[in-house]
């Protein structure tokens, strides 16, 4: 029975040194009768204890059925699923192309795009210019806008046919809804919302790094025995691939019987409702307001600064709860996760639930009159002052020089 446990302590080898207790990030190990005991309810099998043990007394069980290496090596190439909306390829795809190119070069394989949509042929050239060796294009009026069923079927069939070793997709609402289903259909591993990707130089497998616990810890995850290795990647973390018009590549058109495009649910309408013209997730600069802004009318001061910078407007939950601005602008644990180049927090205290949503921004600016506000602990630049005094001057300066 003990051998069947996912992780176990070999009592004969355990010296009771307690090193593993200290190393377990999840507090899952305790000592009982001078031997380490692992609480499986808390254990995540991260392996920190296995590494820490000097006596090889902790083992994680190997999986029982391992696929033959040959079966895995029949999978080749790195794929990028290119999300499109209203026939425009979304910028997250360009970010995946630069990362995908790097991974494909390390593996010595092709970088391929998958593009699903209606009359999308013109977009293929740009994808090739940005690094794709091949573009698999599936063109049908039925694929014009994203729908779960047809997109899942088409992508699953394409992967089963061409056998890529890696499939990347943006961690957007569409990406996350689609890829999770495809991974289940293909019985393969999927890592959500990665912020780092690399190739293990020896094993040639994909190392997928992502934040967990709201960014308090980072985890590196692999799918050693399954192909393809699939990951969704957070928007705005990787740089966009720059087009090189001289690049050459091939467009491969794929067609499927009509029933593949069938959808059980029906998309009735697509409604765009963002107040501001700039999409929060796409924005390079975000100006956010919190309870310190004081009222709905006062939010105008945030909007004006945003306008002067061509930035999007964000908000803390307190501002949303007070009805000063719609929920679609909320940043944080129960709102959106954003990663702009510059995030300007005005009158936001910086509680952990807010920080979770914005702390990976490149540069964070905090304007708050309370010197003790936690937002200053993550801020690259801080101003301890009244936002009503600072913001108008800032806005004026930008209006002058950026126009």
């Amino acid at each position, binding site marked *: 029975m003990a051998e069947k446990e996912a992780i176990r302590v070999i009592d004969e080898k355990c010296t009771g040194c307690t090193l593993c207790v200290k190393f377990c990030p999840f507090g899952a190990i305790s000592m009982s009768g001078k031997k380490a005991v692992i609480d499986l309810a808390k254990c995540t099998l991260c392996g920190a204890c296995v590494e820490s043990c000097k006596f090889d007394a902790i083992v994680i069980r190997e999986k029982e059925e391992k696929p033959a290496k040959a079966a895995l090596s029949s999978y080749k190439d790195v794929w990028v699923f290119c999300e499109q909306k209203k026939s425009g390829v979304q910028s997250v795809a360009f970010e995946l192309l630069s990362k995908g190119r790097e991974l494909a070069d390390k593996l010595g394989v092709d970088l391929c795009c998958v593009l699903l949509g209606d009359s999308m042929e013109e977009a293929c050239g740009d994808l090739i210019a940005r690094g794709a060796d091949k573009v698999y294009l599936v063109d049908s009026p039925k694929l014009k806008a994203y729908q779960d069923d047809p997109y899942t079927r088409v992508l699953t069939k394409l992967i089963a046919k061409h056998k890529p070793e890696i499939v990347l997709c943006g961690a957007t609402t569409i990406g996350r809804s689609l890829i999770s289903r495809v*991974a289940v259909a293909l019985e393969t591993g999927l890592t959500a919302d990665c912020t780092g990707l690399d190739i293990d130089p020896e094993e040639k497998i994909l190392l997928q790094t992502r934040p967990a616990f709201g960014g308090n810890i980072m985890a590196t995850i692999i799918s050693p025995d399954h192909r393809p290795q699939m990951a969704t990647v957070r928007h705005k973390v990787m740089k966009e691939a720059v087009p090189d018009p001289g690049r050459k590549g091939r467009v491969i058109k794929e067609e499927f019987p009509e029933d593949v495009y069938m959808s059980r649910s029906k998309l009735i309408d697509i409604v765009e409702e963002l107040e501001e013209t700039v999409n929060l997730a796409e924005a390079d600069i975000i100006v956010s307001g919190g309870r310190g802004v004081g009222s709905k009318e006062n939010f105008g001061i945030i909007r004006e600064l945003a306008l002067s910078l061509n930035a999007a407007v964000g908000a803390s939950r307190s501002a949303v709860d007070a009805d000063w601005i719609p929920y679609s602008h909320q940043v944080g644990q129960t709102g959106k996760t954003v990663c702009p*180049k510059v995030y300007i927090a005005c009158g936001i205290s910086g509680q952990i639930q807010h920080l979770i949503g914005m702390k990976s921004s490149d540069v964070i600016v905090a304007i708050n009159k309370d010197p003790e506000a936690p937002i200053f602990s993550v801020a690259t630049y801080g101003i301890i002052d009244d936002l009503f005094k600072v913001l108008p001057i800032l806005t004026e*300066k930008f209006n002058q020089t950026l126009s």
Partner: protein
Amino acid sequence: MKIIVLIKQVPDTTDVKIAPETNTLIRDGVESIINPFDMYAIEEALRVRETLGEGEVIVVSMGPPQAEEALREAISMGCDSAILLSDRKFAGSDTWATSYTLSQAIKKVGDHRVIFCGKQASDGDTAQVGPGISMHLDIPQVTYVKKIEKIDGKSATVERMTEEGYDIVETPLPAIFTVVKEINEPRLPSLKGKMKAKKAEIPVWTAEELTCDENKIGLDGSPTRVVKIFTPPPREGGQLLKGEPAETAGELAGILKGLIIG
């Protein structure tokens, strides 16, 4: 007719901190809560039961024995009954194995018309379990649901939140919905609910009872493996800009212009 809600017990993330010396999570005194998004799932299930005037709301969680607390809390809010999926064999489950195991439980419950999940769990933030279940059960899904416009026993029209606004989607039932915060305001437990929760018998289902394929649960059923856990590098020490508003704003404008243009 059954309305099923899937909830996960998670550590209250506000309290998760890293001890700088040992580089580990400080877990002492960390409370467990129902994943915040799952509270909205519970509330919406109760509302659907009210709208339809029929149906039984069953909450299901897979986790260690102490996840029972979360299930009792759900009952105190008004859910009819609860089931805990707990077995050492489930240890090490990733989202593939979790969605398989939950699907087996849903099949065993039977007669499911609507299934609710949270948008994502706050400990893992994967948002993969709901869509995974829709595949295992072969039913339609709508993710990021922010409003149920219309629902009867056969179909539902819902709003799915997108980056730009929302889509209006009509789906036949049974279907699975993952919900976002905007959908409702969860109710507080009632006194009657609390009494009921205290007395409720919560069955524990194991791998055997779920007739799980042992190769699809726990470690064996999980394609992914965590190989390393580490603390993100701390943000570089910030810089305070000092002086009168005119000075600080001027300095900041200069810095930002450099960043934006350069």
